[in-house]
């Protein structure tokens, strides 16, 4: 009996070790002092800078990143190596790398975590990436509310500079790089890359019309690459171990590891580094990750990739309409398109228990997008306001049945008709909530008093999905 226990303990210990070995970004997060240069270096820090600057050409680094299959971790999932290879290199013009640390997408908090605990991982990635792109000045644009993280990064930069990893003639290679932290001012839209560039220039965060893309004309009309914090940090293990090794992790075109920010009604919310491809069910219920729904409640819905992606009821979160297990990967989460799928987005995983009101949450998100719209395009500026107003009256018992289709109509008129994707990001949560939870919206209209006192509950949102044949009949 006892022996068996020990054995299973040992097995779980080993399997934990195996999983731990997979951690590329957070491997040393619990090491005391890992935020300092010395401890960070004792754990292999800055090896990639030595390797890249001394033994690799910039183009070879871009190739390595291409081989890795790394996709942008900021939300859009665009292949990073390809993005880098688009950077224009005109003679006599500076090029810039700007790190997007604006992290404001509701449900997302991984970049804050990384910068707080292992700031040097970002600095190291910035040096290697700047070298690959030929940038001699780079900026980390951090949302203004993260003042403590700004101080942490500034300290880490000073340490790195002292040790010869930044500044003039880095490690005697002749490469010069200055790295600065730039604070934002509190505006979600500044996470959009062209708004971020405007903001960095000291202006309002109004997104630019593309083209020209930042790769041609970005900061001060110079070629610019904007990458998320996690994307930049992932370059470090790719250079250390090779793109091919990185590409072995994950599933299909979703290579590598991903930081997932888990929030909402979970037993263990927090930041988890997963191999892309972990089943959603395992991520929610296993003790290694979120440990199930808090307070013994049942799961009602999931927003898998930050507030901008479509919400899914529990059943569609765990399984695709084909009955396949839903995986945490770019492809699997979007399986079924907008009809029955969602997106990995920024990895902001929000779980809703059976007591949550979908109408109220949809109103909250609509309010958020209305508040954050920069106001440049009328479909977004006006449409988000209408959606907020209509959802408010539905939630507060003054809704009409026709309001539900009105919302769908407004969402459709915003989508695809705006300068930047914030319009789509505002439309999708509303459209998907109505698509999957229409009963609950209708109940708010037919039972306004009751809807003020209690929530609709779980209804059938967690029931097993009907088989495909049954649906088509």
């Amino acid at each position, binding site marked *: 009996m006892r022996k068996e226990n020990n054995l299973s303990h040992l097995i779980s210990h080993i399997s934990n070790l195996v999983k731990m070995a997979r951690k590329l970004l957070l491997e040393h997060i619990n090491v005391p002092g890992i935020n300092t240069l010395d401890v960070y270096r004792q754990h292999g820090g800055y090896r990639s800078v030595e390797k890249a600057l001394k033994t690799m050409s910039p183009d070879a680094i871009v190739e390595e990143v291409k081989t890795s299959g790394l996709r942008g971790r900021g939300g859009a999932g665009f292949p990073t190596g390809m993005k880098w290879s688009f950077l224009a290199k005109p003679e006599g013009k*500076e090029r810039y790398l700007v790190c997007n640390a604006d*992290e*404001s*997408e*509701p*449900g*997302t*908090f991984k*970049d*804050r975590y990384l910068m707080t605990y292992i700031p040097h991982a970002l600095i190291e990635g910035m040096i290697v990436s700047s070298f690959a792109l030929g940038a001699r*000045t780079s900026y980390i644009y951090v*949302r*203004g*509310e*993260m*003042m*403590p993280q700004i101080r942490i990064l500034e300290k880490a930069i000073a340490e790195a500079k002292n040790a010869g990893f930044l500044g003039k003639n880095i490690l005697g290679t002749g490469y010069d790089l*200055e790295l*600065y932290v*730039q*604070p*934002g*001012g*509190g*505006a*979600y839209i500044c996470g959009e890359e062209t708004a971020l560039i405007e*903001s*960095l*220039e*000291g*202006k*309002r*965060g109004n997104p630019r019309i593309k083209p020209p893309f930042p790769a041609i004309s970005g900061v*001060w009309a110079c070629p610019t690459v904007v990458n998320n914090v996690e994307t930049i940090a992932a370059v470090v293990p790719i250079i250390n171990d090779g793109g091919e090794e990185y590409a072995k992790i994950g599933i299909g075109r979703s290579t590598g590891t991903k930081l997932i*920010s*888990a*929030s*909402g*009604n979970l037993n263990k*919310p*927090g*930041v988890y580094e997963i191999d892309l491809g972990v089943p959603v069910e395992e991520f929610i219920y296993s003790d290694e990750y979120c440990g199930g729904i808090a307070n013994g409640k049942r799961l009602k819905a999931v927003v898998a990739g930050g*507030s901008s992606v479509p919400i899914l009821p529990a059943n569609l979160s765990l399984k695709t309409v084909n009955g396949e297990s839903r995986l945490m990967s770019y492809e699997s989460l979007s399986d079924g398109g907008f009809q029955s799928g969602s997106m990995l987005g920024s990895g*902001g995983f*929000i779980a*809703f*228990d059976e007591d*949550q009101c979908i109408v*109220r*949450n949809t109103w*909250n*998100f609509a309010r*958020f997008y209305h*508040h*954050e719209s*920069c106001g440049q395009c009328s479909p977004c500026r006006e449409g988000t306001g209408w959606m907020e107003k209509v959802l408010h009256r539905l939630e507060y018992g003054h809704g009409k049945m026709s309001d539900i289709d009105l919302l769908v109509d407004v969402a459709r008129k915003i989508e695809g008709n705006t300068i930047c994707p914030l319009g789509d990001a505002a439309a999708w949560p509303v459209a998907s909530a109505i698509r999957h939870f229409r009963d609950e919206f209708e109940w708010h209209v037919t039972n306004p008093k009751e809807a003020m006192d209690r929530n609709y509950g779980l209804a059938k949102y967690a029931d097993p999905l009907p088989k495909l044949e049954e649906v088509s009949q």
Partner: protein
Amino acid sequence: MLSVTEQKDIEFSSSLISQFDEIVTRYPAGKQKAGLLPILHLVQAEYGWVSPEAMDKVAAYLEIKPIEVYEVATFYTMFFLRPQGKFVLEVCRTGPCCLVGAEKIMDHIEKTLGVKEGEVTADGKFSWRGVECLAACGMAPVLQIGPEYTFYENLTEQSVDQLINDLKNKI
């Protein structure tokens, strides 16, 4: 109703100016306007808000038009355009935080401080407001207090009471 509060005769201290001087070295020559946001943060940390007079002085320092400062200060939510309480409690009011009780925390703060969102307590010590997702949804509910933006996580009514008491004693 438009009401303008004035801040007469302000003069930036030499230590503030030397911080400005360092900031503008981060950008290429002629692009000093990029220093606007970091400089506005410093001004707000010094005075608790950014007054029209302070904005004019910033414009003069950066050699840009005053309107270029006004349009930026009014666009970004972090800049206070009128005086606030000495401590501004900024509570996240976005979806994920509301799933675990942010609205209750805001109600509790309103009741405890006895002022509505955006108003200042009679003693000038506190004001509060709801803000959007602070990128800490896993530690919800959360609030922050400037100018250092100290963070308070996993709030309960008790921990909020404790915090308000501590701040009262701090002054």
